[in-house]
């Protein structure tokens, strides 16, 4: 672990003992989960919004995915040369349908695969590795 790892956006997620944690919130009245944190519950059937900080993570099932064959425009950042990557949409066991890059190559990815949330490098800047949350097939 020679290089310093820094989240690409502060406060959204962290790595605790090697485990990926997303910092979101949950309404204690209707149990609706939110990521990123939400100041209020958006469920129209919930008449008593009561938000509490809540950490998400763990495993899920890949609902679908797409491939970025070309680099997206800023504010996205990536290491040169650009390598096509997979973006997965995952139904996490904790109740969130979450989007993230996947660590696998396009030809390795299968819809309905079991995946694990991890923290991984997104790009490098000023000698540091900027990290984000990603999925890894298990």
């Amino acid at each position, binding site marked *: 672990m020679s290089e310093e790892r820094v989240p*690409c*956006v*502060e*406060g*959204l997620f962290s790595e605790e003992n090697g485990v990926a944690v*997303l910092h*979101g919130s949950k309404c204690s009245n209707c149990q*609706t*989960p*939110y*990521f*990123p944190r939400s100041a209020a519950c*958006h*469920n*129209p*059937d919930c008449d008593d919004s009561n938000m509490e900080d809540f950490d998400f993570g763990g495993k899920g099932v890949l*609902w*679908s*995915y*797409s*491939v*970025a*064959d*070309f*680099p*997206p*425009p*800023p*504010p*996205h*950042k*990536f290491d040169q040369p650009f390598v096509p*990557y997979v*973006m997965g*949409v995952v*139904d*996490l066991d904790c*109740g*969130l*349908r*979450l*989007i*993230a*890059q996947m660590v696998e190559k*396009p030809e390795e990815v299968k*819809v*309905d695969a079991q995946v694990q949330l991890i923290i991984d490098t*997104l790009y490098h800047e000023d000698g540091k590795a900027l990290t*984000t*949350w990603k999925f890894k097939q298990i």
Partner: protein
Amino acid sequence: MREVAVIGVGMHRFGKTGDDIVGTKSVGELCRTAVDAALKDAGVKWKQIQAVAAASSRFSGGKGWGLNGNDVVEDLGSTGVPVYNMSAGCAAGGNAFNVGYSMVAGGVYDIMLVVGGEVMPKGMIQTSGVEEATDPEFLRQRCIGMPGPSFWSTLARRRMFEYGTTEEQFSQVAVKARQCSVHNPNARFQKAISLEDVMNSPYVSNPLRLFQICPVSNGAAAAIICSAEVARQFTSKPITVATSTVATMTFDDMLPRGLADPITDCPNLHTEAQNAVTSAFERSAIGPGDISFTELQDNTCYYELAFPEEWGLCKPGESERLLMAGETTPTGSMPINPSGGFVSFGEATTAMGVFQIAELTWQLRGQAGGRQVPDAKVGLAQTLGLGGNATAAILKR
């Protein structure tokens, strides 16, 4: 509520900045052509128009404030009429039509102009451009990086998993669309393409290829609508607006729109579109089985397969069979986008809802030439816009 009729429609052919069709024309010039054509088609003079409902654009005209209707009124001659500028992303044209329809139906005005026009910037539509950790679109791009078309390819991939849809079938939708466009003088692309052409076009976002995704275009469309009573002064064959609806998405929608959404048991991915179409069926007492043809928002070929199922025009998983059997062509049992659709026109975003009204009108009058749906009696139109906006309209003769 009074009965409302469409008595005139017009369009400026769609094109791309710098080409032989639209060249360097401003959105004002495109709208002028469409409005002049609609007035002429209706036999109505500009001074007879009592109010204007226009689609608001963030890309062109409107003095940078989306005041596109005011631009049109100034150009045609400031008569002092009320102007309603409607903003709803790509659903804005449908929204403007709904406001016009509601005003005339409610007896506020007897005759109105509905208009939408667009000169689009080059390349993919850029997102918010805000660099703040509180902006969900910024987070989506910084933490993940999602090019626009990847959103559609995620849906296409899911459909391949659920129903075994093949890349050839997505391509066949484009082949069918471009076959229609051959007969549409307003389409940007008017040349038929083969299955091979589509399959040989490059991936924009795997599994979707260049010819399966609509580009952005410049264009404009206009419609003159009025009460049934006023319509009789101008024509013996008005087209009747059976209904026009607007809806927004519901909380349980499962389309992955942000970074994360709560998982619900809602099977629907486009609740705004489904709500708009379903409420159009309810309000008009016209059912899916009564629809002669549909003009739907096909930003990508995926939607031509998914939407008819989401609205009950056919059963889930049935679209591919209907497509391959030719049932979605103008002469089939479930014609979809006989105009050639967005895939043949390109998307002049806020004009599209009005573009659909023009095509429905031509089809219902029997003026659609080589793309005519035989004996078309009832047409359904649908738009979908950023922010969870959607509209639907049902026209009949």
